[in-house]
């Protein structure tokens, strides 16, 4: 994506800081930590909409697995 068209939703310094905090706060819960990182990544590139869709896809995993079955 070019610099002119890219939508950046979080500054680099804040992003790094959040990563460090998640690592520290959620070190005893890898599942929660991974989820937090995934959310941060999604927010960085796609903002609120990206996070919303990610959460929806997480909720819908069950339905998809049922359909697959």
């Amino acid at each position, binding site marked *: 994506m*070019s*610099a002119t068209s890219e939508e950046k939703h979080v500054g680099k310094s804040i992003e790094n800081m959040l990563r460090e*905090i998640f690592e520290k706060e*959620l070190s005893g819960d890898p599942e*929660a930590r991974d989820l937090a990182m995934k959310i941060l990544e999604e927010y960085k590139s796609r903002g609120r909409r990206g*996070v919303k869709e990610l959460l929806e896809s997480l*909720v819908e995993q069950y339905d998809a697995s049922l359909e697959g079955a």
Partner: protein
Amino acid sequence: MTLLLRELEVEGFRVFRDPFKIKINEGLTVISGPVGSGKSSIISAIEYALYGTDANIDKKLYTRRDLVNDSSETARVSLLVEAEGEGLYKFERIITKSGKEKATLVLPSGETIQGAEAIKGLVEELTGLDFFEFSRSVAVSYVSLFLLAYGGSSARSNVIDRLLGIESVKELASSLSIKLFENKLNEIDSQIESIRELFGGETYETSGQEEYTVVKKELEGLKAEKEKLENEKKKLEPYAEKYQQIEQQIKGGEGALKVLEEQLKKGVLSMEEITEALIQVQEKLLSTAEKLQVPDSTRKKIENIEIGGKNLENVFGELEAAYSELTNIYYEKYEALKEQEAHLKELHGRLRAIEENLVNFERDVDNYEKAERIVEELKNKYGDEKELHQKIQELSRELDELQRASQMERYALVLKRHVAEKVAKNGEADCPVCGSKVTSEFLEKAKLDVSQGSKKIRDIEEKIRQLEERIKELKSALEDIRTNNLVIISLQDRYDTYHEMLDQKQQLEEELETENMEFQKAKAALEDIEVELKQTRNELSRLRKEYAKIPLVNQAYEIKSNLSKLQANLSELKPYWEKYRELEEKIRELESRINEKTQRLSFLEEKSEEIKRTMDKLEELRLERERIARMAQNISRIKGILINVHSELRKNKIQELNNTMNKLVKTMYPYTDIEEVRVRIRTPPKAEDRQPQKKYSTYVIEAKTSGNWLPFTSRMSDGQKTIIFLALALGISMLTNKKVGFVILDEPLPNVDTQIKISFLKNILPSLGLRQAIITTQAEDIAEKLEGVTLVKLKR
């Protein structure tokens, strides 16, 4: 290294259709002009030249294509930037109306970099800011200031967050919706509840299992009982088979007896009666043989049949043979009669043919007879042809003579008249015949002669006429005779043939009459014989049937006797048979019950499978519920962390911000009524133990006047508010920006007095520690009064 602006050139960019260039010096550059003159376009051009976007594109208020002037096909922006210690960087971007862009960067070394992506990296390195950071720390717009001053507390907090670069933390936290998970959990709970309601839960499963065990046991018991009964039944099978066999025999016997009794119902003739009847048949056959005029041998054969013997079967045979022989003879006679009949038909045919032929001859015969009659009549009247011919010749000669005489008479008469006329004239004349002299005496005589001669001529002519008529009549008769004779001659053969045929016809008629009489007689005789033969045949047939009945009586007796024996046997076998039937019935009942139980078992098995599937489904839903709940918990936890981080960030930033802000207020604001300003964090109550934080902190902006801290909204004028929030925005800029030596302010002081504006413009750069400030304003009169200010005046 400090980054400074040096020169901006635009063409076809936003309001600038024509080429426009400004040099940007150290110090303050004020861009003034009326609304729509292009003040904001210059700020937009600087942002676009560096980052390929501007604040409005970033806020999605318009697109990059809208940067191109309405009257131009392309927009071009060129910006010269100096990095102290390095040299000049020249940024150039050209964009078309279709949005196609060409970006170029010429480095201080003269090297040219092409492409937006490569330039982006270098710009961020030079400024130490991405566009996100540049737009909140270098290019401060009045929109931000307006929201700070006049927005609600929440909007204000968001703007401050944005300026501080921490609003993304809050936005990220608020985007983590727990509601989504709660809804899903409710949905799963509802599914679990409805499944439980539908299937009655585990109780049903247990009761179904119990029933299954009971039914299975019952089924096994029934099958064992059935097997036992079937063994018993097997032992009785030979008796049952025998019983059924006898029953079948009795049924057959009764049927046969019924038929026999039906046959014997009309009575039976005795042997004597049959013998007597057969004798009559023999006599009848003899009578028929007589009529048929059979050979003696045949007749004797019939006479020799001995009917009195014991074996009537032979007698029947002999009589039937005799009957057959007579029948054959009858048929021979019958064939002869048919031949006779055919001959009669032939004779009739011939007669009809002659009659038809006679009709054809009749006309000629009539003509012949008519001619013959005419000739006969003419002969009778005039004589035959020869005589008639002679008469005509005679009369013709006589006619010739009369005609000559008449002619002579006429000549003489003419001569006498001639002489007489000469005498009368001359008194005399020479006779032209004899030459002698004729005188007047001759006249008298001549008169008399003429008169007599005329009379004579008339008489002769009368005779001639009569003679001619007679000749004509005779000639006509002769002609008729000859004509009719010709007819007779020409029709003579046909006339003779006709009469021959008449003779033949007569002969045939006589022959037919005789033959027909004989035929009718023979036919009548044969018809009588046929009747007799039929009667004989019927009688023989009847007697045969009667004869055949005699053994039936014995047969019926035998059947009855046999049936009695069978009935006795059947009675003996009946207890076994009844037992057998009873067992059969019981087995059938058992089979029916086994069937019912099997079906029930099958149903319970299916139900059990269904319950299992439901349990699996419930387990699946339970696991999913756990997963969603766990995820909701995680999301909630992450959200809590983010909210806490956000609050901490606010706290950390706020002290430094407050110091900078007060410094700015003191240098920019020339009055003393505002003693101090601060941004305070209002923290929500702490969440319960181990519960994630759900509420956000907010900023409270306060001003100290007369020694009291008051919310900025109390007693503050719009101008004071503007100063406070401009200080806040610039304070935030100072916290963020470390490399860029300039600030861009778009209409920063819309509603303050001249003193404040002058103070602000004088002190902005020293207060911020920056070397360049580009400010757009409509207050060009104030800018003109200040020294060291570059004023760029724009016109519409």
